[in-house]
């Protein structure tokens, strides 16, 4: 069996005093594999991604990313591991406003393992491959499409084993959404990173060879008020 980029085992998470929102017995993603996880709004998709990235502490279970049990690490060790093993792309992109495209990518490289001397070339190379034209322009002055590319470049900057994409196309029209997803898949493949994308957009299903229903792997009942991605 190929090395797993992601492996979840008996993962449980609930808000203090509240019901469980995530209860996953087993879930895995192979190295270089790309999967779409679908689920309705508020079903716990973002919470699951934050558990995988080690941004939330699971109540029980294990999260292995690239063979490392992220959940067993604490504090700065976990942050370092996340920085070099996990890339994230958000619906709202979450670029660092006031900084240029290349600076946004350099910010990610600051927390990775690549030698500092290679940072600039790596950032410029990635942005060039992704078609970002004005790499020294402040990100807020770029079009949404260009910003999306900067966000993808930032997620891949440190050569992560796993890229987590949280509704990255939610704010795009269908045509641009298709272009963005194809670009994301293509670059992840080139970089050898696995991709787990969550979306509630049914149109995304046809673009992934593997589609997982969150409802089918999450045994927690009536998830609500999830991780901040709750939508009315």
């Amino acid at each position, binding site marked *: 069996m190929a090395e797993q980029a992601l492996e979840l085992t008996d993962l449980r998470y609930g808000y203090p005093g509240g019901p469980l929102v995530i209860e996953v017995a087993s879930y895995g993603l192979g190295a270089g594999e790309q999967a779409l996880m679908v689920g309705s709004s508020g079903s716990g998709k973002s919470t699951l991604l*934050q558990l995988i*990235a080690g*941004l*939330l502490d699971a109540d029980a279970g294990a999260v292995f990313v690239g063979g490392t049990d992220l959940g067993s690490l604490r*504090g*700065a060790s976990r*942050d*370092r591991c*996340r*920085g*070099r093993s996990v890339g*994230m792309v*958000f*619906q*709202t992109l*979450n*670029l*660092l*406003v006031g900084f240029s495209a290349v600076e946004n990518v350099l*910010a*990610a490289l*600051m*927390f*990775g393992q690549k030698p500092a001397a290679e940072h600039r070339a790596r950032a410029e190379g990635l942005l060039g491959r992704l078609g970002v034209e004005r790499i020294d322009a402040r990100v807020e002055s770029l079009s949404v499409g260009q910003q999306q590319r900067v966000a993808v470049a*930032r997620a891949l900057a*440190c050569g992560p084993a796993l890229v987590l994409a949280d509704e990255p196309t939610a704010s795009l029209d269908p045509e641009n959404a298709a272009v963005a997803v194809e670009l994301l898949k293509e670059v992840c493949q080139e970089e050898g990173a696995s991709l787990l994308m969550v979306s509630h957009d049914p149109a995304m299903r046809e673009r992934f060879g593997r589609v997982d229903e969150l409802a089918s792997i999450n045994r927690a009942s009536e998830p609500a008020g999830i*991780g*901040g*991605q709750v939508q009315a």
Partner: protein
Amino acid sequence: MRGLSTTLTVLSVGIAVALMLILLGSREAGRRAFERGSGNMHMLVSGDSSPLTGILNNVYYANAPRSAFVLSRFDGFWRQQRLPVAWRVPSALGDSYRGLRVLATEPNFFTDFEPNPGEPWEISEGRFLDPEGADPFEVVLGSEAARLTGLGIGDRIFLTHGPGSGKLEAAPALTPDSIGDQTDQADHDDDYDPTAPVEPGGVGHVHDDFVYTVVGIARPTASMHDRVLFSTLTASWISHGTDARRAQMGPDAPVMTEEELVEQQKVVTGVLVRIATREGRDASPAIQMAFNRFRGNPQWTVAQPASEISRLLSIIGSVEGVLLAMAVVVFLSSGLGILLALYNSMEQRRRQVAVLRVLGASRGRVFRLVLIESAVIGLLGSLLGLVVAVGLDGAVTGVFRERYGLYLAIDVVGSGAALVCVGAVVLAIAAGMLPAAVAYRSSVARGLRPLG
């Protein structure tokens, strides 16, 4: 908005640092400025009502001395008392030239008296007053007086009766060539009594019978003496004796000659005295003994410059303490400003902090980043404060020099500066602790929550 907020915060730190530097620098500068000028005399005997007034008037040219006394009585006194006077320099203030004060004195003012201990007078051009000179109507210019008036060696001028304001007046130079009609219109003071107190700031008539020749320009001494013109006592006595004669006999009475002067007309407003001590010693029982003897004579007051300056500075010191306290308050409020600016920005930067955490920044690193930002604000503020302080130093020094003839050498970049700048950075770091703690504790999930 955040850029503006940061700029304003840096500005407030800069102002606080500048204030602290100026105040700390000026404390010593004030003392040094007052110490310059009183020179190597041990005491001043004057006709003023109090020792401090005597020092201010006769050494710092603050105002015209209020009364004079006969020099021969003074000389008779110390000789009769057998006081070990090493030298004495009599002086009289009462005339002016274009508002600048004229000190009538004896030639040993330039040889015995050192304006700053160990720094004797030096001539820049020409010569000092001639002890053997046949013509007493000569003038030596202080360096600043020469610069302000534009006078040079050989120039001939008239002096004005009255002390002048101490500041250069815009009136044209009074010279024998230009005086012309002015002398006709000059307000001759028929009631002038040379021994009477001179009204401070009062402007009298021009001594247009007596032409003074500029014979020398002194090198700068960085003291109030630089703004003064120096003439001979003999010339002063002759011109004022002539005034007195004309007051009695009418305006056509002839000018007085040196031979005609009587002892009662040979008055002075102050005498600088040095007591004979062992070489290089400024402390001796003889000084205190002489001081007590002079003080026992009601004809004059006697003052020791060092103690009067200390008294003056202790008066100023309480004001200085208030100013220093205010500067500390400004300093602390600038720290509070940093705290508020960063604390408020933490709410706005919740997302940035969350993104940095996602990218791999540890809580500790985020904490340090905020502290570094805070320290940078403190450092920039310090540098700005240093630049502002140096600029203000130049301006303040210039104003004091121009207006009061006081040479303030404010040492804003001395050892205190490093302490203030380091203090500002430490204060900034301390102020950044709370915002850094907020960033440390901020929830990544909450930070990544979409806006709206």
